């Protein structure tokens, strides 16, 4: 009897002990010398949560400013109101829906879904009455757009205004993005602009102006600098503190690196056929003393249109870039880069790349100076992207800038994936904590969604 009693007693004790977790140190986040009570985000598609070739509800919920706002909520930050699309919807700049990976002819490719174009086209779906929003980032916006009331003016007609802003502007045609941001009386802001001031030129294959205000142009320095100054001056006018981010170079973007200049893979037979096809070209080339177009088995440089070339086309050289948008033209019966030259608008030559590089450097220089002048937290996205090109590992997952398998970029090859945005959010948080002595919690990257496979 006695043994049984002891056994019961021991059993009881062990059941109690089973759940005795070790004592742990408590961590309490604090704001340092920043005031996060009203947080606003000003920027472009990156800040808007554009992902997989479209703005989508899920992308907006995963936008890096919203990730930051979620972490700020433990520090007394108010509601972070975003101009959300209806749940489950998406709309891209070409009125497409979000891309998904799909098997097409045995190949896994990003394919656009149907999407919800009405959300941009039909003003009755717009949410202007709900303004102001805390996240006033506008996909496609350049620096000076954020100060222009024309940005959201539908009366200018399709193609002449930005419907992403028009749909949530407090007063389309009258209000500005900056004005709508200020309507919140922000105490803290994030500002990430300038990407589109360079990128659009690249997306158009360098066919725009080196300095101009057209869609495909690189923004002139004075206009960029003036716009950034005005934005920061205004945002800080009420005593708000903030974080500002520079522009990553395009080398990191899979959109410009997935297809390499010499990605034309040929069999010996195909090479022979193509060589025959370019025999006439090569006669002229010899006569003019310019390089021939030749092919061999294995990888070959693509043939590209070149308006400045005496024969209007040539083979690409190392360092030049092919746009991801050329993929279908290369693969289908347009035979871009082989039988037919790759259009000028689908490639970037060395001079065009140099224009972009120099503009990026100049703009980044100004952003850095502005951060110093206004004593703002500063995120060096350009340096982070360079690290990412070598690959980084976070919590057991490796990320790099490779298309799809690199996990950082979404299926459009320009915008981040959900996890990519979480990584960006953490870089912003680290910069904020370093500047303001705060301990804003970091997001848990593995809780976010990366690239999804069928």
């Amino acid at each position: 009897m006695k043994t049984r009693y002891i056994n019961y007693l021991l059993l009881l004790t062990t059941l109690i002990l089973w759940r005795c977790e070790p004592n742990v140190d408590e961590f309490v986040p604090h704001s340092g010398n920043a005031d996060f009570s009203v947080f606003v985000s000003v920027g472009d598609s990156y800040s808007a949560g554009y992902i997989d070739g479209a703005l989508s509800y899920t992308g907006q919920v995963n936008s890096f400013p919203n990730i930051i706002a979620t972490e700020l909520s433990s520090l007394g930050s108010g509601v972070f109101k975003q101009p959300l699309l209806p749940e489950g919807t998406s709309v891209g700049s070409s009125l497409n829906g979000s891309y998904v990976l799909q098997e097409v002819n045995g190949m896994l490719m990003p394919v656009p879904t149907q999407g919800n174009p009405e959300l941009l086209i039909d003003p009755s779906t717009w949410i202007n009455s709900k303004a102001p929003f805390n996240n006033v980032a506008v996909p496609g916006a350049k620096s000076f757009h954020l100060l222009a009331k024309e940005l959201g003016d539908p009366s200018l007609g399709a193609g002449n205004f930005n419907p992403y802003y028009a749909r949530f502007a407090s007063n389309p045609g009258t209000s500005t993005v900056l004005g709508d941001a200020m309507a919140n009386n922000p105490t803290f802001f994030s500002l990430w602009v300038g990407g589109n001031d360079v990128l659009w030129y690249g997306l158009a294959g360098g066919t725009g102006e080196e300095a101009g205000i057209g869609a495909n142009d690189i923004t002139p320095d004075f206009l960029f600098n003036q716009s950034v100054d005005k934005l920061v001056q205004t945002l800080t006018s009420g005593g708000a503190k903030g974080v500002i981010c520079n522009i990553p170079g395009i080398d990191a973007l899979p959109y410009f690196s997935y297809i390499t200049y010499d990605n034309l893979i040929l069999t010996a037979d195909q090479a022979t056929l193509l060589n025959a096809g370019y025999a006439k070209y090569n006669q002229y080339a010899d006569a003019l003393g310019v390089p021939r177009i030749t092919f061999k088995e294995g990888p070959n440089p693509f043939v590209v249109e070149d308006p400045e070339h005496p024969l209007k086309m040539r083979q690409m050289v190392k360092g030049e870039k092919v746009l991801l948008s050329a993929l279908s033209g290369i693969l289908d019966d347009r035979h871009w880069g082989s039988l037919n030259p790759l259009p000028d608008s689908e490639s970037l030559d060395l001079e065009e790349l140099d224009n972009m590089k120099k503009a990026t450097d100049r703009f980044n220089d100004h952003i850095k100076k502005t951060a110093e002048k206004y004593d703002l937290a500063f995120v060096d996205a350009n340096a982070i992207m360079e690290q990412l090109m070598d690959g980084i590992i976070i919590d057991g997952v490796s990320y790099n800038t490779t298309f799809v398998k690199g996990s950082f970029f979404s299926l459009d090859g320009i915008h981040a994936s959900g996890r990519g945005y979480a990584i960006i959010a953490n870089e912003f948080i680290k910069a904020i904590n370093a500047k303001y002595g705060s301990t804003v919690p970091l997001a848990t990257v593995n809780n976010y969604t990366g690239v999804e496979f069928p």
Partner: protein
Amino acid sequence: MKKNLLIGYLFLLCSIAGYSEGYQVNLQGERQTGMGHVGTGLNFGASNIHFNPGALSLMKKNWDFSFGVSPIFSNNTFQKLPPSTYEAYSDNPVGTPFYFYGAGRISDRFTAGIGVTTPYGNSLVWGDDWDGRYLIQDISFHAIFIQPTLSFKILDNLSIGAGFTFAPGSVELNKALPLQGQNGEEGQVELSGSTIGYGFNVGLYFQASEKFSVGVDYRSKIDMNMDGGEADFTVPESMSEYFPEDNTFSATLPLPANLVIGLGWNPSEKLTIGFDFQYVFWSAYQSLDFDFEKNTEALQDSHNPRNFHNSATYRIGAEYHLSDKFDLRAGFYYDQTPIPEDYLSPETPGTNKYGMSGGLSWYITKKFSLDLSFLYIQGQKREDGYELANFYGTYYTNAFIPGFGLNYKF
């Protein structure tokens, strides 16, 4: 520009499990456990088969049988480094190490016995969705050491012994793969297999005087070579060709050698004090490599450096003979972790540990006793991580281990 350009090397960084001082389980006798697990310099009957086969032929009776079980209630907490607020708690099943010893005197000089013990094992469950899931979700490893042993008395106070160990063992581990499906499910791999390892245990025991005894025991390394372990991948449909079905792997997990030097001291007739210095040759565990039978572009063999150091454990324990009915015990030990900085992975949240124990024997009859022990293990908090996976945080560990044993000798 084929599909394979979109995916590759996904498995390259998947480090796969290993263990630590946590996978050595020192619970091979309730009397010893009650005394901080000292025993190599003491003569505690049949359990000498494990602690020091040399002492076996000096056991006081002709027959000695012991059986015991020590359920382990362990807890692990992981905190990511601030300012992250992420925390995870393990949900470990109760581990059940046990032992059985039987020994009998064959002649004046020879004593034979057999021991069945579980000196290595590990059960750790972090959960399917926790933040470190790409390193490990859960792991279960068991090995049973079966050790026939023979001891020879050289002199009345000096004896040697040796045992041959064969050790069937099995492992099962699960981890997530960073490969997300459109259905919201994540890739996963289950690796499982079993094998038998072989080794030996030799010991020398010297009763220097009535008051002092000394023992040395060496237990060899046992390599658990696993061939044909099952590698079962669950991945999104479009990726399945890269993770072939019915794949197998081979891997080797070393169970390291131990050298134990023990001292016994009887300051009075009623009091016994023991000291053990245990040195574990963990440097045998340099890496854990999984060699898959079928490799693909996305599924390469997996090399996971471990770089363990040799480690030492210092033990002290005392037994007080209260009466003919009761012995009381207490002990303490300090157990160094073999895991170097930047190699701390959540499948082995190893850290320097303190063990505090107590115990008692109740002699129900002269021949038959009930042996009880209780061991509390407190791990030092350790802020560290596995660099190759860049997974860092603070690990907290403790364990409560009650032990129940029976001994019959005549």
